[in-house]
């Protein structure tokens, strides 16, 4: 194994491969920053460039693109509330409010540090235990995934803090309902498609996120210039990049926890970066003190660091099933698998034995990629953040333009544009009545996976609900979800009399 690592190290450190990492990170960041283009499009765009490379160099470049695009996606989530990837939706929950408070610089810097830490810690795990973890990734069955999605949904509670529990739950249910549109996996029957071919594949996540986040926000700034977007004097200082010692102390445990959580969620082929980021967000809020809890959704540093760390750690984790089993856990890793095959490398249990230099150089280049990304991006942050200094008359149309074209360029379907506008207007109306959008997108993303796994579990257990308690993993996760939901309720119930006494 050590021979493999040294060979991998030598390959990854070769000067041309270092250049590839840099090019990959740079290209990825740039593409990912455009709203609508995520890691999947970025990698697909870059694959033709790598034809003719040797496999290790090709993968090194693409891994750089992957990380870069995720980081770039966080940037657009934070600055203009346009998450181009499902994995960065949770980043926008607290990142965008931070930017609106005039702390865009700090938010971006924190995102960069968090991504770096998450990616690096996960890469170390990968280095130490990848072959062993293959077994872990296969230990999860459909009931366990279902339980995991339920746990993810409890994050809705995070948006219910401001007294509108009912509104948050209603929006989560709306999201769950929207996720049922399209072809039903278990029966092959079309649901709520109104006979329209464009709806057979369901509603695209990107479309919904762009419409309800970016477009609705841009429209809001037109409707209520006082409410949408930061005021100009707040922006004249985009805030310092530096985190105070106190703040570092505050986020450090968050980063550590979220890296581990993110990595292990990423290892599971049926979960991935999105679930990881929601779980981390939910976890951080549940662990936060009562006072900190109020800050979530309004620009909490922990609320930004948690999901941002977890999604990067999960991306690294998703290389475990890809490299050791040849099983892609997400659309992005599926594209990477295609790229590997086109280089003549067959990922699977034998890769580690037969082509150790490819296996290890990819893992080592991940570490390098994270480092390069940090070095590359920190100096750029002030310039990127300046984007917000643009007069609103220019910024708003630009956001509208990029969001609409971003979605169009993926499907080339005008129906998608119409649907986007419809959703954006609906979202605007709901926002004016102060319904939160985040629970809706949470319900939408988790809803589809939750339903598929529930239906599969039921099919496998022949319709019996016993799958909920038959496996220890399922039972454990379900119990955590129940505790997460019940404890705050009980606490609130018990605390009230005390609070009254204190004031009396």
């Amino acid at each position, binding site marked *: 194994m050590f021979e493999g690592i040294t060979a991998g190290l030598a390959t990854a450190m070769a000067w041309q491969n270092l250049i590839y990492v840099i090019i990959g990170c740079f290209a990825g960041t740039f593409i990912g920053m455009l709203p609508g283009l995520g890691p999947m499009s970025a990698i697909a765009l870059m694959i033709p460039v790598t034809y003719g490379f040797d496999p290790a160099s090709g993968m090194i470049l693409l891994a750089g693109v992957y990380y870069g695009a995720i980081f770039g996606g966080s940037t657009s989530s934070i600055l203009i509330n346009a998450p181009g990837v499902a994995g960065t939706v949770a980043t926008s929950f607290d990142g965008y409010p931070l930017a609106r408070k005039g702390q865009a610089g700090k938010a971006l810097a924190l995102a960069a540090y968090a991504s770096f830490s998450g990616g690096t810690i996960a890469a170390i795990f990968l280095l130490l235990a990848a072959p062993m973890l293959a077994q872990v990734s296969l230990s999860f069955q459909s009931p366990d995934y279902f339980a995991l999605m339920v746990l993810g949904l409890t994050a809705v509670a995070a948006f219910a803090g401001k007294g509108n529990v009912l509104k948050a739950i209603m929006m989560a249910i709306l999201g769950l309902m929207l996720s049922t549109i399209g072809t039903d996996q278990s029966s092959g029957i079309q649901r709520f498609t109104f006979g329209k071919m464009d709806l057979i594949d369901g509603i695209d996540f990107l479309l919904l996120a762009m419409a309800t986040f970016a477009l609705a926000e841009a429209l809001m700034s037109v409707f209520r210039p006082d409410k949408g977007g930061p005021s100009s004097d707040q922006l004249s200082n985009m805030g310092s990049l530096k985190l105070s010692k106190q703040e570092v102390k505050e986020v450090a445990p968050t980063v550590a926890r979220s890296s581990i959580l993110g990595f292990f969620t990423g290892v599971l082929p049926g979960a991935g970066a999105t679930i990881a980021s929601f779980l981390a967000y939910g976890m951080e809020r549940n662990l936060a003190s009562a006072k900190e809890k109020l800050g979530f959704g309004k620009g909490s540093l922990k609320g930004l660091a948690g999901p941002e760390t977890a999604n990067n750690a999960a991306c690294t984790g998703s290389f475990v099933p890809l490299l050791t089993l040849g099983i892609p856990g997400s659309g992005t890793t599926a594209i990477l698998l295609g790229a590997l095959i086109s280089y003549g490398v067959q990922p699977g249990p*034998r890769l580690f034995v037969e082509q150790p230099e490819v296996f290890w150089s990819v893992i080592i280049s991940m570490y390098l990629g994270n480092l390069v990304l940090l070095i590359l991006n920190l100096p750029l942050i002030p310039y990127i953040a300046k984007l917000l200094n643009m007069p609103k008359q220019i910024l708003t149309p630009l956001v509208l333009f990029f969001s609409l074209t971003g979605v169009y360029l993926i499907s080339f379907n005008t129906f998608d544009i119409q649907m986007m506008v419809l959703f954006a207007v609906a979202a605007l109306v709901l926002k004016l009545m102060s319904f939160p959008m985040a629970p809706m997108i949470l319900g939408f993303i988790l809803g589809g996976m939750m339903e598929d796994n529930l239906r599969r579990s039921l099919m496998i257990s022949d319709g019996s609900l016993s799958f909920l308690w038959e496996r220890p993993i399922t039972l454990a996760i379900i119990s955590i979800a129940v505790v997460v939901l019940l404890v705050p309720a009980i606490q609130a119930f018990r605390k009230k009399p005390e609070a009254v006494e204190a004031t009396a």
Partner: protein
Amino acid sequence: MGIRQNFRRILAGSILATVCVSGVSQAEIINKAHFLVPGGAGGGWDSTARGIGEAMNRSGIIDKVSYENMSGGGGGRAIAYLIETAERQKDTLMVNSTPIVIRSLQKVFPQSFRDLTPVAAVIGDYGVLAVRADSEIKTFADALKIFQGNSRKLKVAGGSVAGSMDHLIAAMIFQAAGENPRKVRYVPYDAGGKAMAGLLSGETQLLATGLGEALEMERSGKIRIIGVTADERLPSASNIPTFKEQAVDASFVNWRGVFGPPGLDNDKVAAYGELVKKMYDTEEWQKVRDANGWVEIYKPGNEFMAYLESQEKELGALMKQMGFL
């Protein structure tokens, strides 16, 4: 290779590739191809298009190749688009595969392969049933015994929705063994890889998939393939038994091929057929083919059409019996 050439590849391979519009009508000389992929980047159709395109381009059979991804409607949107704009799509080839037959039978989209010009079937992938390496099921007969005892005890994983190809492969095999195909307990996953993970995690007993996706897992000793729907054992995987030799008359191949717009003239179809034939002999193609585990099944023009019609009949009868039509 030169940077400039690389750059050209970026442009050509870009998912933002624009539609080539051209009025060249000389059928004999084909020096460029535009591939329309009815699904997103990275899928099976995409890798087929890019595999064929790159092999043709790199070996110098054609000078220029471009790709266009258009997903939606289970491939139906690309079909509708090709028909609507047929006039300016004379140089466009759309990649497709067996699902065009299945989905048109299911009325997912109103068109069928008859509304296009079948140019050639290029590659094929056989269906397989696989079990975990440590499964007590060693042969198809073992699986059949469990099925006959209680079909609920034999869950079959597959990487697509109920009623689609993986499901039909499993149903077809059990039907050929004299069983009721409706009794097959099919558990759908949203991708082939996840179905594989489902089998390996032990939640299903069988996996129905394509040979290409299962072969590497078999070689690494994680799974065992208990039968392949080919007529004879394959030279590339001679240890895998066919269903035929296990006295189960199941024969199926998932073809992947290319279609032209409706009304493409015969000369051009023939010229494309020749192009594919020429490609088979190139080193570049053989490399791509072996890397992906593809099997060549050459069926040009009319032969392809006749094959599609017989497949439609066969699958249609099976789907009707299963209650999907």
